[in-house]
């Protein structure tokens, strides 16, 4: 299936691949198909194998086409004042259909993910020794001896910091989604002539329905397997964008200044801390958003709501919150994304969807 002549490949850092077939199988078993689809790697694969890799990849990830999405500051101001919203142009990308599971994350742990500096953000690597499970070995906070709790193999991995999520995503050949990408997949904006862009409130539509998401009202009181709540999937079959666990985003949290009882001008002059309510938390840098109308907080953005999110209004697609990138909570997990243009050409996708353009582009407020 694979060309057997040893050739230099970026997959192995320039070394020859004597057993490329085995390596490909191993990567597929570890849910790292995205690595095999990098153009420089895919070029080495036999077409039949490449086709198999693409099919495997598409089972786990859904293509979200390029297009605009509107992002609102959150929470909305209490007086209903008109909010400044940002229009962001998003490139076509693939988003994981499911949150990363305990079983998937265990592959990362077993492969020595906590010991490979190249996978880690420098800040995360500096404190990687602190990222231990209950038995003191590297791993998510609620694991023990490098193993997840029994019966939770298909539950989303929780108790992981933003840095662990980021490192896993890199190991899998992907990255964390941006807020705009996540919103694009969940709100599914449609350009309607004469009406502009229409966005959904929830991934399934505009009406809350407790049978479609694992929130507080569902009564589970904990996480459920990542493939539960099939009626809550988005247009292209991405599960649990709302409910089960909050998901780490790649970027920072931004909020309306009115909600924090601050003016944009006060950014940088007030002492803001995040953590416990009445204990001195960790300091948070607050800056004026470059677009205006919002404050950027030095916290990582979280979206989607979790099993313990009480208010349904806090689980709409536009709702977001944040936390320190080092916190490891029982209701925060993640899923990964990868830009379509970073992968080899998927022959099942129309050319305009994979138009290789750099990043998401903001197009100003409206």
């Amino acid at each position, binding site marked *: 299936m694979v060309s057997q002549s040893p050739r230099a490949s970026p997959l192995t850092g320039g070394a020859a691949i004597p057993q490329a077939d085995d390596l490909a199988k191993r990567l597929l078993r570890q849910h790292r198909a995205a690595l095999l689809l990098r153009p420089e790697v895919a070029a080495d694969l036999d077409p039949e194998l490449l086709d198999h890799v693409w099919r495997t990849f598409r089972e786990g990830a859904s293509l979200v086409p390029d297009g605009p999405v509107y992002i609102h500051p959150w*929470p909305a101001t*209490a007086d209903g004042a008109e909010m400044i919203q940002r229009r962001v142009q998003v490139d076509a990308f693939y988003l994981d259909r499911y949150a990363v599971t305990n079983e998937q994350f265990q592959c990362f742990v077993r492969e020595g993910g906590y010991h490979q500096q190249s996978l880690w953000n420098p800040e995360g690597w500096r404190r990687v020794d602190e990222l231990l499970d209950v038995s003191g070995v590297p791993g998510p906070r609620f694991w023990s001896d490098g193993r997840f709790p029994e019966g939770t193999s298909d539950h989303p991995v929780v108790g992981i910091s933003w840095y662990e999520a980021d490192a896993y995503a890199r190991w899998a050949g992907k990255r964390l989604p941006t807020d705009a990408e996540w919103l694009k997949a969940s709100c599914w904006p449609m350009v309607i002539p004469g009406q502009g862009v229409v966005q959904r409130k929830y991934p399934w539509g505009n009406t809350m329905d407790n049978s479609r998401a694992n929130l*507080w*009202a569902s*009564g589970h009181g904990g996480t459920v397997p990542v493939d539960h709540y099939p009626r809550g999937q988005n247009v292209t079959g991405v599960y649990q964008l709302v409910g089960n666990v*909050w998901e780490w985003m790649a970027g920072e949290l931004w909020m309306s200044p009115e*909600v*924090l*009882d*601050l003016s944009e001008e*006060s950014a940088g002059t*007030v*002492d*803001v*801390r*995040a*953590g*416990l*309510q*009445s*204990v*001195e*938390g960790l300091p*948070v840098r607050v800056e004026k958003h470059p677009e205006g109308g919002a404050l950027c*907080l030095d916290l990582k953005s979280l979206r989607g709501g*979790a099993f*313990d*999110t*009480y*208010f349904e*209004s*806090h689980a709409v697609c536009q709702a977001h*919150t*944040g*936390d320190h990138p080092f*916190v490891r*909570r029982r*209701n925060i997990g993640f899923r990964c994304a990868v830009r379509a243009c970073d992968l080899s050409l998927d022959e099942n996708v129309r050319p305009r969807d994979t138009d290789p353009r750099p990043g998401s582009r903001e197009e100003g407020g409206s």
Partner: protein
Amino acid sequence: MIRPGELPLMTWDLAFGRREVACQVCGQVNASAAESCVRCRAPVALSLASAHQKQAPSLIAVLGPPESGKSVYLGMLMDQLARRPGSLHLFARGAFSVAIQQQCLQALENQQFPLSTRVDPEYWNWLHCDVAVTDGREQWEIILPDIAGRAMEEGDETNSRRLEVVQTIMRRCRAALLMIDTQAIERGDTKPDFFSMKTVKYLGEWSAQKGRRRADRPVALVFTKSALSDLCQADPEGYARAYTPGLWRQCQDSLKQYQFFASSVAGPCLTIRRGDSVRSFPLRIEPRNVVEPFEWLVRTMAKTK
């Protein structure tokens, strides 16, 4: 016929308003037309609602120092039991009871905490409700006064009327929810420990006056804001032994029926400090173990009727 500028003589209303009704909180007799009890300032509507019943409602005192989370706890408890019932179901009696729930929940939904309860009893929130077992016949009528923490904190000093009201409630209550701020404990503040010890002592003393060594009124000791303390969530009694040893011993010595709980409503918060002013904003609302302490109290009260 009433001419312009004249006030109508509403004889029926006047006669009705002269009807006397005993305050369900302190026993003071008030005119039924009065807004609040002349002695304890509890709304007379509380007493009117149960004036013709054979059995008086049970008073459950909600106690704790300022900012310990009493109002947030009560608001969330009510919302969970009224709108999303599990094993217990709550029916509010009177619009003022629903107001507690509304004020608290609206604030939390807007990622704010409700304003502190004002210190004078006429401004306290009074929750009057019927609580029923969802799959059974048992039902209890309960009054829960949301006492301002500052009214209890000023204790033996200053305002004698406020102190009298607090003492009356503590004397007459059939059970108590005692709120202890976990975060204050974690930052090394001894105030919650002392406050709770003092309260438990009071509850015990009034029982002692009746010739009992230990108070038999059930007391639920609730570690509030405990979301981010794994130890507290996992073993509240062990946490009490380790972090509030004085209170823990006091409970053993003075109370016959007590239990420690760990509860929380908000998750992590943003705290903004400007000069002397500090404001907190909840980043997420993730209630945990809100109903359990109340359910334990109600069921224990039912057993010890």
